[in-house]
């Protein structure tokens, strides 16, 4: 079902017109209300009148996560505090936390975009949605909450953690939708298995998974283990939270709610915009947000954009499933390595558990990457040579994919820390 056909299926010309109008107003508002942007404009000798439409987007300055930190906590807000009705804060996984604020209108818009996402995933008022994202400062829980209510589905606001209770509610209330991070979904799947509950014994049919990059192989794994169709939802607190983009039933990229968030793909080194279809860093400009509007925010997520009409009928631009964050990218002996590449290899082998961790060290000025993989008890053999053989094959497959040599270590089951939120995949000892 399409929640807002008028917007989601509108012509490119109409969308461009809408974006240009929004952008002009937004630039003016920022220039007069946010000293940080006014100063940037003045330094660049740029006037709000120079921005006539989205064709001038590239003239605007970038905004970095550091700018939010430098103006902590509310220095970039474009409205007085009295207009702010909600505050959230980033998890601070990559450094000092940042604070974001929403006006009443921002929250309405957030519900609207989440409602579009949920409709695209086939969720309706007949569904029971178990939101196992953290509620609180993290945008995941509350962000999806109001959108779910807007669609009319029943919300179970269980938040993250307390796995035993998650399983109980899932069974007692008959949850049809599970919304959480893919790593927590995996943990819940394992817990169901341990408790002897088969996928047929739950009513789950849709998974809304996001807040971290995950691969299509992980999708297959989760769909198989939980007996549902898994959808990727994208968002980041600086821009809004979950609901910036989401997959439709075609799962051929995520439809960006571009009437609110204009996406661009840039080359992270030259900072030049890249043509349609090329992979680069995703950059967002908000055009309707009141509390914390941002110009060309550097997400550090890698993706590509596609403007052709989707088979679902939506014309909203599609972003490819994120390949990972540039800050998750490891540079090992000069080669770029994403955890997602290793995840793909492991899941394609069907012989190991999907739990892994990457340990990076520097020995004698040489980077060493060691991949720890949990032994899957289903494949545990009594013979040492079979285990050594498995170890060799994992090593061989990872090296083939990455093009660098790695160490592989099989570890005991359940020894890699499980996550109720975002998974910790990397331990980089080089930074110490």
């Amino acid at each position, binding site marked *: 079902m399409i929640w807002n056909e008028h917007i989601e299926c509108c012509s490119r010309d109409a969308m461009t017109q809408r974006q240009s109008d929004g952008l002009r107003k937004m630039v003016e508002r920022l220039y007069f209300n946010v000293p940080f942007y006014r100063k940037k404009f003045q330094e660049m000798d740029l006037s709000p009148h120079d921005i006539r439409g989205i064709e001038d987007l590239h003239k605007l300055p970038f905004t970095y996560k550091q700018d939010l930190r430098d103006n902590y906590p509310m220095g970039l807000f474009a409205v007085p505090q009295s207009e702010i009705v909600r505050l959230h804060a980033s998890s601070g996984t990559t450094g000092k936390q940042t604070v974001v604020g929403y006006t009443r209108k921002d929250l309405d818009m957030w519900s609207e975009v989440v409602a579009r996402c949920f409709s695209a995933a086939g969720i309706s008022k007949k569904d029971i949605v178990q939101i196992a994202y953290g509620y609180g400062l993290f945008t995941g829980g509350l962000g999806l909450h109001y959108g779910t209510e807007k669609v009319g589905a029943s919300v179970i606001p269980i938040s993250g953690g307390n796995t035993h209770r998650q399983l109980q509610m899932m069974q007692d209330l008959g949850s049809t939708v599970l919304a959480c991070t893919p790593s927590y979904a995996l943990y819940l799947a394992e817990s169901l298995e341990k408790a002897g509950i088969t996928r047929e014994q739950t009513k789950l049919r849709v998974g809304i998974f996001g807040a971290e990059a995950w691969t299509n192989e992980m999708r297959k794994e989760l769909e198989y283990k939980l007996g549902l169709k898994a959808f990727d939802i994208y968002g980041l607190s600086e821009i809004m939270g979950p609901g910036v983009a989401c997959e439709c039933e075609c799962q051929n990229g995520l439809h960006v709610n571009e009437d609110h968030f204009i996406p661009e793909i840039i080359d992270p080194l030259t900072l030049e915009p890249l043509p349609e279809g090329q992979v680069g860093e995703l950059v967002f400009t908000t055009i309707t947000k009141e509390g914390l509007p941002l110009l060309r925010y550097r997400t550090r997520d890698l993706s590509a954009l596609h403007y052709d009409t989707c088979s679902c009928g939506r014309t909203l631009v599609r972003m490819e499933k994120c390949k990972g964050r540039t800050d998750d990218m490891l540079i090992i002996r000069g080669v770029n390595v994403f955890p997602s590449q290793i995840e793909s290899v492991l899941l394609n082998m069907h012989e190991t558990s999907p739990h892994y961790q990457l340990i990076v060290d520097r020995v004698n000025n040489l980077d060493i990457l060691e991949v720890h993989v949990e032994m899957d*008890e289903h494949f545990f*053999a009594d013979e040492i040579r079979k285990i050594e053989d498995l170890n060799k094959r994992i090593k061989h497959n990872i090296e083939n994919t990455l093009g660098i040599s790695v160490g592989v270590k*099989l570890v*005991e089951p359940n020894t890699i820390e499980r996550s109720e939120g975002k998974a910790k995949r990397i331990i980089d000892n080089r930074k110490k």
Partner: protein
Amino acid sequence: MTIQQLSVFLENKSGRLLEVTKVLAEHDINMSAFSIADSSDFGMLRMIVDKPEAAYTALKNNNFSVNITQVVGLVVPDTAGSLYNALEILKKDNIEVEYMYAFSFKDNATVIIRSANAEQTAAALKTAGFQTMD
């Protein structure tokens, strides 16, 4: 004719064996034989216990990778040449031994033999007059 052996995957990390023996002690499980094979990264603990099913469940619940395999417990007199006589039988029947380990107690020695087919191995030894554990 054959007996159940437990195999446990152990990371090469201090305290792992201690942990296994603790779980077994807590569940009142007695080990009568064991061996540890090691590679550079991991070890494999193989053992014969009095309550294999209970030990399997207890270890599994404590997050160990564990499985049960059928092996032959060959009982031979603790005298020179006993093992030679038994192995001759296996050679004659073309039975390949994956691994074995042994312990002796009073006048007898027990040899745990892991081969591709435990039943066949036990039958061959029995036919030749050897005693195997039940």
